[in-house]
């Protein structure tokens, strides 16, 4: 993406963000920075706090710890309310409204409404404009909800599991629309999912939350380049000692083979095959080993990370 233009301004900055309920932490000590103009995948197992994080950013929930700023403003401020769009997981819509009325809702309540973009998304799915929302299929309803989020012309679009009830063809088509629109306007997209295949070729930024905290955050290319997938013959129990000088993310053995994802601290030498991991391998390794040391690349770090010091102006 157009990195030089947007890399300076952060779309999101979270400082020690936490959400604690009576039954425990839903999100804990979450600090990261998302530069503007990126398509960011928010990845994590079920219950990792993805929805909580997005809900806090969308001013649906109040965090119990820490703070988050959107383009330098607090969630719920007029400015961030206008510049961000949020599509909740359950994709709520008024069931008795027609599709046209739902788009009118967007037009009436948003000053920068783009009727053409919204209608384009509806028409691409052949959803009739005079149909009541309650009569639509799940996929059609998702399409209307996405059109509503898109028509707002946000600078930051936050989508919580947006594609979960779309078939692969529609998923591909909507994702294409989303990427084209985002690229055209430099929209920052933060999209949660646990379908890892959805992210390949879509995201150029990643934030992995697991166990309530950030495990991995940063530019996709950078993250890929600092990891190496090592495959070789198993020698005794555990890992070969020669790999001990590298940061181990995850290792697995199958039969007489072992596979390890490492962050090399120097040249990897030994009788092993080394490959660059693909995104799915990288994410799976981190998701399977919650104890692996977290990695937050410099572009994803916030100043004074880990301390809730309030919003910092962009």
């Amino acid at each position, binding site marked *: 993406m157009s990195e030089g233009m947007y890399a300076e301004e952060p779309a999101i900055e979270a400082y020690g963000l936490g959400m604690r309920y009576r039954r425990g932490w839903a999100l804990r000590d979450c600090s990261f920075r998302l530069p503007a103009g990126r398509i960011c995948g928010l990845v994590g197992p079920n219950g990792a706090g993805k929805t909580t994080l997005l809900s806090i950013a*969308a*001013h*649906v*929930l*109040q965090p119990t710890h820490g703070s988050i700023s959107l383009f330098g403003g607090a969630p719920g401020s*007029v400015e961030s*309310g*206008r510049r961000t*769009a*949020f*599509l*909740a997981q*359950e994709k*709520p*819509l*008024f*069931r*008795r*409204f027609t599709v*046209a*009325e739902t*788009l*009118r*809702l*967007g*037009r*009436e*309540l*948003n*000053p*920068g409404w*783009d*009727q*053409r973009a919204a*209608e384009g998304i*509806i*028409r691409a799915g052949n959803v*009739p*404009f*005079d149909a009541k929302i309650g009569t639509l299929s799940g996929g059609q309803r998702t399409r209307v909800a996405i059109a*509503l*989020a898109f028509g*707002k012309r946000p600078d930051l679009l936050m989508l919580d599991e947006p594609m979960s009830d779309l078939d692969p063809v529609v998923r591909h088509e909507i994702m294409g629309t989303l990427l084209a629109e985002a690229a055209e306007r430099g929209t920052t997209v933060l999209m949660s999912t646990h379908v890892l295949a959805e992210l390949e070729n879509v995201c150029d930024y990643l934030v992995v939350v697991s166990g309530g905290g950030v495990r991995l955050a940063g530019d996709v290319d950078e993250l890929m380049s600092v990891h190496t997938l090592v495959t070789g013959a198993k020698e005794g129990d555990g890992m070969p000692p020669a790999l001990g000088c590298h940061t181990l993310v995850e290792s697995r053995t199958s039969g007489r083979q072992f596979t390890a994802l490492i962050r090399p601290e120097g040249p990897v030498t030994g009788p092993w095959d080394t490959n660059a991991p693909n995104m799915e391998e990288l994410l799976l390794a981190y998701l399977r080993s919650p104890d692996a040391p977290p990695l937050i690349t410099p572009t994803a770090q916030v100043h004074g990370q880990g301390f809730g010091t309030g919003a910092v102006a962009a």
Partner: protein
Amino acid sequence: MSTFTRSSTSTSTGSTSDGKNGTMNATTTPADRRPRLSGMTWLVWRQHRAAFWTILAATVLSVAWIVYQRGQLVDFLDGYGYPGKSLDEAGGKFQQYNDAFSFVSTGLQVIPILLGVFLGAPLIAGDLENGTAKLVAAQSMSRTRWLATKLALAVLVIVVSTGVLSAVFGWWWNPVKSEATVMDWTSGAAFNTTGPVPVALTLFSVFGGVAIGVVLRRTLTAMVVTFGFTVVLQLVWGYFLLSLGNVVTVTTNKGVTGENASPSLPQGAYQIDQSYVTGSGDLVGWGICSESQTDAARQVCLDKADVVGWSVKYLPMSQMNAMQWFGASILFALTAGVVAFLFFWGRKRLV
């Protein structure tokens, strides 16, 4: 809040839009020329239009019925010669007009309960339950504005419908207002259906329902609890109704058995209590000498107790208006408290 625009934005289907213009604003159809709701007002009206139109339509029908009934009543009274001739002698002929009053006043008295349960409870609980509160919160306008618009439109519809019904019902009742046989002014049938009382009772019931819905976040539960709340409100209101007035006490000193011994109360006065008064000013129950067999024995008994006359406590009908406004202002103040709570709560947990 209720901004009207002449916006020509068409909501027709995609087939009429032209791709070049993009926003479909190009054409102005004749139907668009009338003023249209816009912004948040449009959304809230659109969402609750079925309820709002039902309330307004029911109001119009009721008003038409009352106007017709009043015409019938006035025709009868003119033909009968009222007020020159007492209605007590009319007997069965007046019964149908009497029944019409009790029928309509019963209907008016259940309005606070009906609107509390079917308008108040689901007003925001429905959005919290279906997640549409999140949808609205995700748009550019503040949720305080959303809450304010919802409450304002509800107030508007309630005040218009109950205000008009109250005024028209009072107008119907006015010719026979002093006839306690038609409606006793201290009864709920008259007191709760005229003046500011229907408006105040309905507003408090509905806003109580809204608050219950906001706290419980479930429409059906909120409706059930609101039903209980509104019924209890009616009971409490009925219990304290007479306390709203200043009780007037009248005493006599012409004995208690004579022809003109009882004090004369103004017409339509509501008698609360009566007892005998003694020479020293003490009150004694009027049953004190009822066991005496003969009038002479009774007189002896009364003389022995030093009973000199009656003491009667009553509320004059002239107080009705003041009592209604006093009670209504208490309800309005409570409603304002509920509104303050809603805005306070809405800033934190309205999604």
